[in-house]
């Protein structure tokens, strides 16, 4: 059981999705129970994996027992365990919320939701480049369907753009993989990194081109500066639980960037270029996100731009290029993902009680439960804007400390300014929602038990992250150190494999390596 634990986060959602599909439209209660139970189980699994990875060792699961670098492997290190954990926690909040009725607005919500989780977990756990592509496609296809859940003009319009953009992204992904495979003759991440380090001349330039193409694809998913235009309309038009789950989607791109930077391109000439681009792109995204936050006329759009601000923050941290920066980034990432999810859910609750005005920032009827919603809104606003005592402030503090002398000049003012704009925009939104309402009796519906539990589950993370800040920051620091030394990652995976070819000029030998065992890739075929 122990050794198979690694594949369960992928198998469990897949089987759950199948079971839910098989039960058909028999009973929506049954579907909900299965979905919630499975997601709760996923949280437990994630905790087990996290404890497993916390020791510092890297576990490898070779699918079909085909050893790396020829077979496809799943790899669990601190980073993947952390990402699976965040996904599971966020997903449980979303699925609880959805059970209140959002899932009934279209067909097969829970099945698609589970498939999305499968794609996310797979992308976080895989140690193979092409497998990463396959899991990206799974999570994207599920996200297309989830985005369209409930229908309506806005969703179809945003969905069209989102789908086309991501299909182009997938095409680029394949081109990048083709170039990288052509240059290195392997698809295993660890092996590829090793081979790239040995490349010379034209081959090395080719690998750099592939690396940069790959970063473009991941930047599209992460919504960094020139590639973010799809995000605000997509996130603000999706159904609340979907938008909340999408808070992890931009982080998949970020995860992929962190992973390939540390494992594949750590020795490539392209890394300097990549880090420079991430740094400047991240800062500019931060600025534009902050402008968007101020300009938004709707709480959902505002939240979408807040996602952009957090993407900009994280990206600029990933471009810092040192261990403390990565550690700070990971700490901030936990907080920002969960809180953004909570914000999207809360926006829906507020919108429900305001009747036709919804989440638009206009005067509308009074809320039925102003104290409850207002209290939760305050917590979220404080956390998002990054004011003490909640974890947002801590996250920003470690980020600012992590920046070195030259980086501080840019990062400090921009980060603090973005926090200020977030604070201004959220307090304006709060005053409109809770104080500037029409006279008269409130008539909106009460908040359902499930909705409340979903939001609360995510909101608890805000104080919890402060309480656990010590162990968590140790964990993220250890994660960053682990990322910075890819040797361990390689050794665990490639220990049983054939020794790498020492000379890069011996290209034909590398080629034939790919030939010999490449049929093991059949595991990839549908």
């Amino acid at each position: 059981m122990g050794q198979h634990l690694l594949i369960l986060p992928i198998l469990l959602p897949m089987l759950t999705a199948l079971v839910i599909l098989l039960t058909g439209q028999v009973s929506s209660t049954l579907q909900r129970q299965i979905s919630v139970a499975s997601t709760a189980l996923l949280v437990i699994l994630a905790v087990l994996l996290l404890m497993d990875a916390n020791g510092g060792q890297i576990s490898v699961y070779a699918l079909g027992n085909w050893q790396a670098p020829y077979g496809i492997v799943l790899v669990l290190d601190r980073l993947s365990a952390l990402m699976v954990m965040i996904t599971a926690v966020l997903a449980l909040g979303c699925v609880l919320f959805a059970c209140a009725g959002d899932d009934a607005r279209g067909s097969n919500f829970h099945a698609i939701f589970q498939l999305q989780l499968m794609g996310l977990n797979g992308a976080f756990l895989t140690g193979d480049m092409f497998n990463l592509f396959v899991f990206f496609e799974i999570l994207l296809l599920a996200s297309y369907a989830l985005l369209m859940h409930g229908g309506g003009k806005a969703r179809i319009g945003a969905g069209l753009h989102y789908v086309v953009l991501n299909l182009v992204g997938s095409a680029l992904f394949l081109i990048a993989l083709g170039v990288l495979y052509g240059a290195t003759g392997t698809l295993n991440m660890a092996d590829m990194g090793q081979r790239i380090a040995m490349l010379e001349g034209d081959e090395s330039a080719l690998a750099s081109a592939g690396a940069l193409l790959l970063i473009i694809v991941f930047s599209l998913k992460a919504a960094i500066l020139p590639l973010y235009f799809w995000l605000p309309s997509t996130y603000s038009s999706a159904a609340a639980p979907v938008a909340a789950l999408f808070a992890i989607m931009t982080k998949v791109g970020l995860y992929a960037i962190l992973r390939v930077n540390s494992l594949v391109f750590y020795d490539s000439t392209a890394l300097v270029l990549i880090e420079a681009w991430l740094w400047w792109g991240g800062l500019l995204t931060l600025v534009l996100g902050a402008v968007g936050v101020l300009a938004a006329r709707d709480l959902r759009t505002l939240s979408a731009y807040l996602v952009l601000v957090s993407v900009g923050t994280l990206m600029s941290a990933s471009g810092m290029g040192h261990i403390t920066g990565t550690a700070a980034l990971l700490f901030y990432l936990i907080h920002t993902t969960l809180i953004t999810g909570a914000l999207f859910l809360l926006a829906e609750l507020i919108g429900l009680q305001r009747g036709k005005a919804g989440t638009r920032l206009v005067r509308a009827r009074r809320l039925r439960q102003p104290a409850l919603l207002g209290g939760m809104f305050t917590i979220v606003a404080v956390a998002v804007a990054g004011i003490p005592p909640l974890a947002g402030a801590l996250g920003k503090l470690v980020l600012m400390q992590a920046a070195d002398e030259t980086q501080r000049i840019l990062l400090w003012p921009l980060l603090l300014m973005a926090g200020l704009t977030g604070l201004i925009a959220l307090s304006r939104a709060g005053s409109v929602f809770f104080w500037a309402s029409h006279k008269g009796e409130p008539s909106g519906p009460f908040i359902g038990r499930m909705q409340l539990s979903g939001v609360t589950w995510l909101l608890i993370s805000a104080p919890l992250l402060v309480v656990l800040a010590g162990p968590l920051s140790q964990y993220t620091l250890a994660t960053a150190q682990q990322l910075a030394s890819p040797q361990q990652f390689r050794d665990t995976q490639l220990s049983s494999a054939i020794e790498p070819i020492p000379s890069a000029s011996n290209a034909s030998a590398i080629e034939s390596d790919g030939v010999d065992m490449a049929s093991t890739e059949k595991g990839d075929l549908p």
Partner: protein
Amino acid sequence: MELLFSLVTGVLSGSGIYLLLRGRTFSVIVGLTLLSYAVNLFLFSMGGLHTDAAAVIGASESPADPLPQALVLTAIVIGFAMTAFMVILAIRARAEFGNDHVDGKQGDEGVN
């Protein structure tokens, strides 16, 4: 053969990108399809171009790399599914908006 192959890939992706930038969902879909053809051809060639070399060990002197063929098969299947999804989505969008512009608005720039 290399020249012909690269020309075909280049022309396909060029036309694909041109069509992708058009304002109508139909041309966008055709553009995406062309682009994915180009990508598939490109992937196929990443193990090197050989003639008379089946991807089976022992069948010929120097067998071709079978991995790109496996990858391209996966890419074709995924691309096919995505195109099907995109077609359905375009039909939905046509029904919702009443026109086939990608933005759902019949602007001046959309008339062509």
